């Protein structure tokens, strides 16, 4: 098989995930896009491992081992990420990442009611931490 097929598919999937991470607003949809990017990397690893296991004499099958490690780390990441998203949702009532500006610096805190909101959110951040 031509090596360009899995490589191109992997690049396209990665860029799809990149678009999802940048354009989505719900935190869980962002996590889904991160999964897409990780899967694109996995496809690349498997394809190059299959290519090198026939092309090279001695191989460690490092691509497939790294793919398994990536899958396990992705499972850990999705568990931690969902726990964080649920904690944020419990505290803020939203999982909209555009509205999670507690740690934002700059002009947001200089608004007319910016100080009161910042004080509230600081107390809430302390309660979360």
């Amino acid at each position: 098989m031509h090596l360009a097929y899995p490589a191109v598919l992997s690049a396209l999937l990665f860029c799809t995930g990149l678009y999802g991470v940048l354009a989505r607003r719900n935190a869980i949809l962002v996590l889904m896009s991160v999964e897409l990017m990780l899967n694109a990397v996995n496809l690349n690893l498997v394809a190059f491992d299959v290519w090198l296991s026939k092309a090279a004499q001695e191989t460690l099958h490092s691509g497939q081992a790294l793919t398994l490690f990536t899958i396990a780390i992705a499972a850990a990441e999705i568990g931690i990420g969902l726990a964080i998203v649920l904690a944020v949702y419990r505290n803020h009532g939203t999982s909209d990442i555009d509205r999670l500006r507690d740690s934002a610096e700059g002009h947001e805190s200089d608004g007319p009611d910016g100080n009161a909101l910042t004080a509230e959110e600081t107390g809430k951040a302390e309660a979360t931490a």
Partner: protein
Amino acid sequence: MTVIAATATVAQATAAHATAAHVNAPTAVAGTHGFLSPTGVEIAFLIVGLATFGAALVTVTTRQLVHAALWLVVTLGGLAVEYLLLTAEFIAWVQVLIYVGSVVVLLLFGLMLTKAPIGRSPDADSGNRWAALTVAVAAAAALVWVVVDAFRTTWMDLDGPAAGSTAVTGASLFQNWVLPFEALSVLLLAALVGAIVLSRKAKAEMSSPPVNSRAATGGSPSVPDSRNHPIEGNSPAEQEGAR
């Protein structure tokens, strides 16, 4: 004199032809694979890859959040089929077990626990989607161009014994990769404990301030929580979220 010149020209031409043939030799060897006469595996890979890419596009563009998770199942299942076509069967079944089996279920649980709207949600995409589209298309163009240019004449050999059968993968994993494997199990344990701590600690600290009111209302921790937070009292949906 002219004869010598003519002979030299012929010799040059022959040499040039020989060099050309030498340059073309790898291409000719590679040409036995045939770029325009793809094998059955390539056709299957292409079809499944198109389906996978289409499902991924729907996943990141649909406005119905649950549908995004279900299209993600199609994407991950298509990738499992691609692994099978690449003769990496163990990876394929691990992909089916972990991604399709557990990660998507976790994502669906997360969508339900954060009260994702069932129908179309108009604000699924943020305002910078055109900038995101520009970045993604530019990255895709650059990556595809570089990758195609780099691996234009590279073929994988899928014949013979499978490169990723369970025996091969297991032997390599437990001969050469034992230490990372064990470190990974420690990482999974840490992630498990971390997820438990993240979801327990917030609840414990949220219910700790209103001790008196909890004693007054009879020990249900969630009701004083929603009363204790000034913002969460704004809408009934958020009160339900705190529950």
